[in-house]
């Protein structure tokens, strides 16, 4: 039976999955509703031959400026997409296709999001070669690893900024310098970055950057790919991409299709708001994360995943010894909305490939939980999470015969 302290006002579990998605900010929703209900803003933004299209076009361009400003890019570098997944696909396939005569080798990491790994796998099926770098046990890549993996035929390096499972922040600036020296394009999936850590597209030396709207209190179905416009890119040339879809030439021919004005406007407002997040809020989130970790650590047999010093405070990923993964998630589900370390695509869950890449055992990868903290998270939420985990882990360990001091070595693992 859930108590009032274990639910929110809507009778739902405490939401601690902000890395998966965030609630739409009321100011974002208002801006989108305005577009959807207006009698003057419904025009096709590509139909600039009349005032209705002109109004919509102006809204789209205003949002383009808001997004660009938030991440230190030029508005002309913003290509709207349906989200970060499409942006990743456009970057990877776009580079691979356009530069296929130059080389067919890509470098990425084993801990990338599936939206990067799956396009790379598909390219392998089409004849490209992909090097999958293995990070250290904290989830960090050594820039020298990347440098060592580059070949004459390497056309792209794709490395994420903030890891979506463990919150580890990669040294993108160093990678940008390495790729520039080598003459290789650098793509960065930054879907988790804005509002959590500084993002400056221009100074990082990045050529392509994927962004998402719904990770920063904006709408789902809205994202962008930043495409560097500088003329002094790798090999002294301006970056070119082959489009994935055709039919209208929108977004400089890179992404055909009528833009969803309300989605774009919502993303613009969300990015403007995210870029103005105060340091006070970051400190608040960091304190909540410390409170959460202190509480979980007191349970015993709880291991933290990922680097502590090179990570954002909004994410905390832990593995819990002595409990089975699916039962752990089922036990907390009535009380907490969190992500598990398993991919539950079927009745039989698969352990997190990210945690496996960090060297965690299969069992510990399955019995992991990701806590995503955000603007709505309170101390009470954290205390609820700790209380629920303490009770349910104790119960499951009793059922499993793995109470403190009785955890079989094979289960505690790496």
């Amino acid at each position, binding site marked *: 039976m859930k108590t009032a302290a274990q639910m929110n006002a809507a009778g739902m579990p405490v939401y601690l999955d902000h890395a998966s998605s965030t609630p739409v900010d009321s100011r974002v929703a208002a801006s989108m509703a305005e577009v959807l209900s207006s009698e003057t803003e419904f025009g096709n933004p590509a139909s600039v031959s009349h005032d209705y299209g002109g109004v919509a076009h102006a809204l789209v361009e205003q949002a383009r400026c808001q997004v660009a400003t938030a991440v230190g890019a030029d508005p002309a570098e913003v290509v709207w997409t349906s989200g970060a997944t499409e942006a990743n696909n456009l970057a990877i396939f776009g580079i691979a296709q356009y530069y296929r005569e130059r080389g067919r080798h890509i470098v990425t990491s084993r801990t990338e999001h599936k939206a990067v790994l799956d396009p790379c796998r598909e390219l392998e099926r089409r004849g490209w070669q992909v090097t999958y770098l293995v990070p250290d046990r904290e989830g960090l890549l050594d820039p020298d690893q990347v440098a060592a993996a580059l070949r004459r035929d390497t056309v792209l390096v794709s490395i994420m900024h903030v890891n979506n499972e463990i919150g580890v922040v990669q040294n993108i600036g160093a990678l940008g310098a390495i790729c520039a020296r080598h003459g290789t394009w650098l793509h960065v999936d930054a879907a988790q970055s804005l509002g959590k850590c500084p993002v400056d597209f221009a100074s990082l030396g990045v050529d392509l950057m994927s962004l998402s709207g719904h990770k920063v209190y904006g709408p789902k179905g809205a994202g962008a790919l930043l495409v560097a416009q500088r003329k002094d890119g790798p090999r002294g040339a301006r970056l070119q991409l082959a489009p994935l879809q055709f039919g209208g030439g929108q977004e400089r021919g890179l992404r055909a299709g009528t833009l969803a004005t309300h989605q774009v406007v919502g993303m613009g407002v969300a990015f403007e708001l995210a870029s103005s997040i105060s340091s006070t809020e970051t400190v608040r989130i960091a304190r909540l994360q410390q409170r959460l970790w202190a509480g979980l650590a007191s349970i015993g047999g709880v291991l933290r995943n990922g680097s502590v010093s090179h990570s954002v405070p909004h994410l905390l990923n832990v593995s819990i010894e002595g409990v*089975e993964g699916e039962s752990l998630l089922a*036990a907390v589900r009535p009380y907490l909305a969190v992500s598990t370390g398993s991919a539950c695509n079927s*009745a039989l869950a698969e352990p997190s490939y990210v945690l496996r890449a960090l060297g965690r055992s299969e069992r510990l990868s399955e019995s992991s939980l990701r806590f995503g903290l955000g603007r709505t998270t309170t101390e009470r939420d954290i205390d609820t999470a700790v209380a629920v985990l303490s009770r349910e882990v104790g119960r499951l360990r009793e059922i499993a*015969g793995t109470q403190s001091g009785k955890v*079989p070595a094979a289960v505690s693992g790496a």
Partner: protein
Amino acid sequence: MNYSELTRRYFESSANVGELSRPGVFRGAAGKREEGTWVQFDLQCESGTLRAARFLAFACPHTIAVSAWLAEQSIGKAVTRALPESVQSLRDRFDVPVEKMGRLLIIEDAWLAAAVAAIDYRG
């Protein structure tokens, strides 16, 4: 994953969890924790009748629920060389996905290991 009301009830109730250590108790276990599923039953038998049962399970909610149900429902029944209810019947009762049939077989192996030991001891 969604679970049936019965599965959730027996998963959450945690009745008959533990071990028995008294005369006339027979233990059977199957599976491996390091492989994700392990089940153990302690059955206390008197004159061929089950008087008490306890279980431990490092396992998914379906496996825990079925084990808890067996430990509860079998009291007072004769101990035989079979599960008190067939694997197929348990699967239907708890809406266990076909992918998890192997886990029900682990339950069966653990139960039979204890039951057969009790029968053989009884002679």
